[in-house]
């Protein structure tokens, strides 16, 4: 059933990473991503890999879930690695027709694979340990400086929150409409592509109608409670930095310094 699709990967828990300030986590993610692509030798890369592995272990999320998110991109990793393998410059180790494998090629292939895997892993750490609402809160706060360019950060964050809030609702609605049309003999599982696209019309139209109706209702309900946008609004749950947040920042900063040193001296 369509309801079984999990959207948003938040895995509830109470580990240290779950309790970190979401702003810190977002900033850490960004710096680690930058780090991943700033590693130019194996020493620097292994430092980053160690950091990523440590955060995966500390997240206390079953490894199975990480592997599941890997599964989706395994093809991408394979293709990019293969391309890199054959496009290295320098002396060939093995050659067949137009394909030649060089030492630089092997090195690039390994680098690319490790980088992509680390990237997916570390992004998963964030989405597994941070609830969608915390995430949007953090993004809203982090985007605040953009306010001087007249970017409506609160409105953007509110839109994201509402969108996330209504994903399960709309999925349930889709499920219901699909059942109702199936009960009238709608056939969605057979026929060619055009026939299948046409079969979606009886589902999409009622879905849009109900989505718009929900939007109007929600807007009305928000106005009834005097919602006027971000100006002068305070939060019920204030984000506050704790000791552990500063410690996390220090760790990432140390790794950053380590990587730079590795890049320069090794």
């Amino acid at each position, binding site marked *: 059933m369509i309801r079984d699709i999990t959207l948003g990967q938040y895995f509830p828990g109470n580990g240290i990473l779950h309790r970190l300030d979401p702003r810190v986590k977002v900033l850490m993610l960004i710096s680690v991503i930058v780090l991943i692509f700033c590693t130019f030798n194996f020493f620097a890369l292994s430092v980053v890999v160690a950091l990523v592995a440590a955060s995966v272990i500390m997240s206390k999320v079953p490894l199975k879930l990480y592997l599941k998110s890997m599964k989706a991109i395994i093809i991408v990793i394979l293709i990019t690695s293969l391309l890199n393998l054959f496009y290295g410059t320098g002396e060939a180790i093995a050659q067949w027709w137009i394909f030649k494998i060089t030492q630089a090629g092997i090195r690039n292939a390994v680098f690319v694979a490790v980088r992509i895997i680390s990237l997916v892993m570390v992004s998963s750490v964030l989405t597994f340990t941070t609830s969608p609402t915390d995430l949007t809160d953090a993004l809203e706060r982090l985007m605040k400086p953009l306010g001087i360019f007249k970017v409506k950060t609160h409105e953007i964050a509110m839109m994201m929150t509402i969108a996330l809030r209504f994903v399960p609702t709309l999925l349930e609605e889709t499920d219901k409409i699909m059942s109702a*049309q199936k009960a*009238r003999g709608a056939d969605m599982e057979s026929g060619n592509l055009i026939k299948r696209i046409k079969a979606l019309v009886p589902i999409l139209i009622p879905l849009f109608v109900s989505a718009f109706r929900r939007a109007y209702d929600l807007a009305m309900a928000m106005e009834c409670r005097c919602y006027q946008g971000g100006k002068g609004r305070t939060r019920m749950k204030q984000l506050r930095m704790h000791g552990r947040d500063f410690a996390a920042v220090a760790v990432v900063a140390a790794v950053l310094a380590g990587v730079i040193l590795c890049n320069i001296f090794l």
Partner: protein
Amino acid sequence: MSTLLRCDNLCFTYGKGTPFEKDAVKNVSLDIRKGEVIGVIGHTGSGKSTLMQMLNGLIKPTSGAVYLEDADINADKSKLRDVRFRVGLVFQYPENQLFEETVRKDISFGPRNMGLPEDAIKERVKRAAEFAGLKSELLDRSPFDLSGGEKRRAAIAGVIAMDPEILILDEPTAGLDPMGRDVLLSQIEAYHNARNNTVLLVSHSMEDIASIADRVLVMNKGECVMFDTTQSVFSRSAELEAMGLRVPQITKITTELRKRGVPLSEGILTVEQAFDEIRAILKKEGRI
């Protein structure tokens, strides 16, 4: 009356194998005969809707089977569509499924999926609209321009147009005004009388059930706890109340009157019935 639809130890578990596992329907076995009207009552979340969706193969039972005239409906997946044409299901708030440009086109969606010829479709749409009490001038309007009650009728007509042998209505009167409820209910009754098909009516209104049903199916926590004639089900008011249900108000009143010595007959289900009996008593006593 012969058995038309038979459920054999039906079970359904939501989210099997996940931490959110929940038994929605447990070991339900029942026989539904040709031409009867069955009222289905139960607390919210008692598994009524899940059970109804298993009857036409929209939900596949976790274990157990549904037999339509002795053929297991889930045995052959390619025949499921034919089952759905024979067992018509009107969902809760069915007006949310309307999608066509005109009411006429929307009602003909079912018959067209059945592969009927154009003139047969036309005939069926006309007849279904009549049964559902939809004025013919509304047929060429957009379904989105209709009032709430008219939309509901149009959606019900969309299922009636398939001319199902068994018509299942999941809370068809929810959210309608009192007048709309009465009219819709009497229309369902008239349709049943005219076609002599089987009707299953899920409702929270005991009055609705009492006025129309031959037998009543009571669901509680996923189990079928009672399945008997309307009179005998509503004579067990203490058990029903323990399940968060109740008997029709008029049944409650007449039972109390009987206890106080008024010679009314047992198991009065409708106001009309009570009115007739009370008048007869008063006449006999020479008070009117």
